[in-house]
């Protein structure tokens, strides 16, 4: 996965993500693609969650999946989640759950309840940082005011780090793939460097949903695992998504 939140020079927060899934879950030799990734693409849908006929939040999802990986609460915040690998992983959480220790939350149920119930960017950030989880994760959150963009790096129990947009430091965007931002990514899977190179080349003056789509379309940020790209703009309550392909030559991950 790749998620990015950027602030343009007018103070708008733009949020884009590639949802990559299906690694090592069966390779289709003839079509040079991952089997599960290809089977997921027809299930990609945009959802408008309504209460009293009013939109509460919108999401890009896989039909049949009741949790949320990508969503926006119009005019309030946008949220995506990327996988985080850790030895202290979800299987421990599941084991605890089976043994009756159920004070943690399932990751995508947390994102769903934050999108449904949080009242602000700060409220959402606190819930994502402090709620106990069954599995580690990265939460990438965008807001509706200048400076509101962050990556929450979570272990199952703790919030390990929160990296925020900081215009004074020249950090006009935050970008997450699947590795802690203070560490080098796995050399076999460095999508961060090419993504940041393209963001820096775009510059804050030229960043828009259009140019963010360009960054998310650059290999290997776009790869064989990429099922969809979503672009969100909180100030306009806008969510748009596109099903992707990556014709060979293209990185398997």
């Amino acid at each position, binding site marked *: 996965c790749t998620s990015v939140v950027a602030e343009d020079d007018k103070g708008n927060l733009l949020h884009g993500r590639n949802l990559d899934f299906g690694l090592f879950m069966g390779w289709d030799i003839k079509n040079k693609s991952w089997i599960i990734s290809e089977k997921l693409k027809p299930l990609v849908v945009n959802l408008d969650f309504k209460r009293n006929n009013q939109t509460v939040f919108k999401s890009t999802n896989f*039909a049949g999946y009741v949790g949320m990986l990508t969503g926006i609460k119009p005019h309030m915040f946008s949220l995506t989640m990327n996988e985080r690998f850790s030895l202290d992983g979800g299987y421990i959480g599941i084991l605890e759950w089976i043994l009756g220790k159920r004070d943690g939350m399932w990751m995508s149920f947390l994102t769903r309840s934050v999108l449904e119930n949080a009242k602000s960017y700060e409220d959402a950030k606190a819930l994502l940082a402090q709620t106990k989880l069954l599995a580690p994760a990265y939460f990438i959150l965008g807001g509706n005011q200048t400076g509101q963009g962050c990556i929450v790096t979570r272990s199952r129990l703790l919030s390990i780090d929160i990296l925020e947009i900081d215009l004074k430091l020249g950090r006009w965007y935050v970008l997450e793939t699947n590795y802690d931002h203070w560490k080098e990514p796995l050399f076999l899977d460095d999508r961060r460097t090419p993504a940041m190179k393209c963001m820096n080349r775009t510059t804050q003056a030229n960043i828009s949903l259009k140019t963010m789509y360009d960054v998310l379309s650059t*290999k290997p940020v776009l790869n064989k695992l990429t099922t969809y790209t979503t672009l969100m703009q909180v100030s306009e309550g806008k969510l748009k998504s596109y099903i992707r392909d990556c014709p060979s030559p293209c*990185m398997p991950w």
Partner: protein
Amino acid sequence: QFIPPFTEDCRSDMYPPSGPTFRGDVSWYTVDLDSPPRERWTALITDKKTALVDVMQAIRDLANAFVPSGKLIELVDITLPFMVNTLPNPFGEEIRGISDVSGIPLGEVVLFNIFYEVFTV
């Protein structure tokens, strides 16, 4: 580069999406949070039933590739329905509704929904 990681120059003018990296647009559905959890996903799942059955079959094939006896899927179908009772509201009821409409065994819909945690295995 024509060797891994196949990095390329930063793309431009990819928007509006078109060409070989754009498979298609995504359709919109409404989920009514005022309706009972068990009925919220009926319209969507009715529409997407074939594709959902398809992906579950692919996951079943994958599991059987690891455990040819089919015992792994049997385990999922026998034990995960019990787990649905432990899931917080409204998720347990919504998952039941999806199983009802799709005809996919409840345990396998539970697996699809907790896959992130299971995948770490």
